[in-house]
């Protein structure tokens, strides 16, 4: 069970108090891939944190004081400083907290990881469009083709570098930034999009062996349960799988 297994806060909920010193707070949602990035970094760096899950279909009024459009993820520290946009939040954590650095030290290698992130930018939108199309019974052959093309680009990078991970032989920030969408391929029904990209499949297998990735893996049935309710517009979707 992960540390974010708490019920969401929705409209009418009491705003949470200030963040206690010594921890950082993440506003999140258990199934959101963008927030997943931030949870991976928090876990990988061993940062003491608390998670407040937000009901995205029934947002608390107070949440708009944390983010102008009520989006997640948002970090809040004990100085009341707010950081949003998943990539900015992840970089902030790497800069602000000591210990294991997820971005490389070398400026050129850092730039390379940021250039790789640019290569990835179409993937979130395409995977979401495929999911929606499949769930609505529409054909998504064109979308899958486009997604496969993006995966080919990533495959080329791994081939050219001849490394297991996108940043080299060890897992690093860029791998964590990509991972959430690959974890969802199977449950979205588009796992066949990596059929022709063997290096990418090896990367996926290697990622599943990473302790951080492992500790935050959501099991398929829980995810399907969430997706079923989400596509029925059920506001209870976000709390699917919680025991109480």
């Amino acid at each position, binding site marked *: 069970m992960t540390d974010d297994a708490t019920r969401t806060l929705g409209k009418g909920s009491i705003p949470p108090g200030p963040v206690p010193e010594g921890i950082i707070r993440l506003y999140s949602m258990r199934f959101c891939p963008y927030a997943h990035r931030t949870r991976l970094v928090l876990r990988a760096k061993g940062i003491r944190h608390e998670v407040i899950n937000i009901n995205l279909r029934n947002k608390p009024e107070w949440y708009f004081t944390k983010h102008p459009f009520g989006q997640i993820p948002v970090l809040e*520290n004990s*100085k009341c*400083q707010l*950081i*949003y*946009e998943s990539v*900015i*939040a992840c*970089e*902030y954590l790497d*800069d*602000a907290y000591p210990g294991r650095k997820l971005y490389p030290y070398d*400026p*050129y290698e*850092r*730039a390379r990881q*940021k*250039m790789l992130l*640019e290569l990835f930018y179409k993937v979130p939108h395409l995977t979401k469009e495929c999911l929606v199309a499949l769930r609505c019974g529409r054909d998504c052959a064109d979308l899958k083709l486009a997604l496969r093309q993006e995966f080919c680009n990533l495959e080329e990078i791994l081939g050219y570098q001849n490394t297991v991970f996108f940043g080299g032989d060890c897992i690093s920030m860029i791998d964590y930034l990509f991972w959430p969408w690959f974890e969802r391929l199977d449950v979205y029904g588009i796992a066949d999009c990596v059929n022709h990209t063997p290096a990418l499949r090896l990367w996926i297998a290697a990622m599943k062996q990473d302790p951080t990735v492992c500790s935050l893996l959501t099991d398929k049935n829980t995810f399907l349960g969430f997706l079923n309710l989400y596509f029925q517009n059920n506001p209870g979707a976000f709390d699917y799988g919680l025991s109480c």
Partner: protein
Amino acid sequence: MSGGSARSLGKGSAPPGPVPEGLIRVYSMRFCPYAQRTRLVLTAKGIRHEVININLKNKPEWFFKKNPSGLVPVLETSQGQLICESAITCEYLDEAYPEKKLLPGDPYEKACQKMVFESFSKVPPLISGIVRTQNKEDCSGLKEELRKEITKLEEVLTAKKTTFFGGNSLSMIDYLIWPWFERLEALELNECVDHTPALKLWMAAMKKDPTVSSLLTDVKTFQGFFNLYLQNSPEACDYGL
């Protein structure tokens, strides 16, 4: 001499040799706002560099080896390392050349600059859209959207109560957004900053910065370039030389 006024290289040109040690090269185009970001940072930090201008309407085949997308700016080091995407080039320069830091050292202040940068991100495509639109009606819709985005930036500045977007001195975020504000007058879009007094003050302060003013292009030259560029003329990129 930075060589920023050199004629552009086009199809059939010989590829340039390796970058000499002690220098960094930027592939650029004199009127490109994205490349201007990189040139602003190179100049502000006093980094020894050479500029190779690319004819974007007639690209040399060898340039696609520097950047497969064929876009400027691209940085090339004497070790043959290539860095693309304007914001990435700017951050690379700030990290690789530690003197005169443009990004704040404090992680939260640095994150704030990145959040402002995100806020700004709708402005460049809106301005490109306006430049390309011939139809007055479509234009007024885009101009309205642009005004909205500019108002957001005004709100950021007034909330901060400082002259510049990063505080009371000029810093990275100011250089990253400046090139589009520099072009407002030439594009007859000054009206978009009519109701934004803090931004007007910021623009005036920016024009006084030695780095900004050393790279300033006058309105007539911009307009000459835009005319030729919109006609897809291969002469556009060298206008005024």
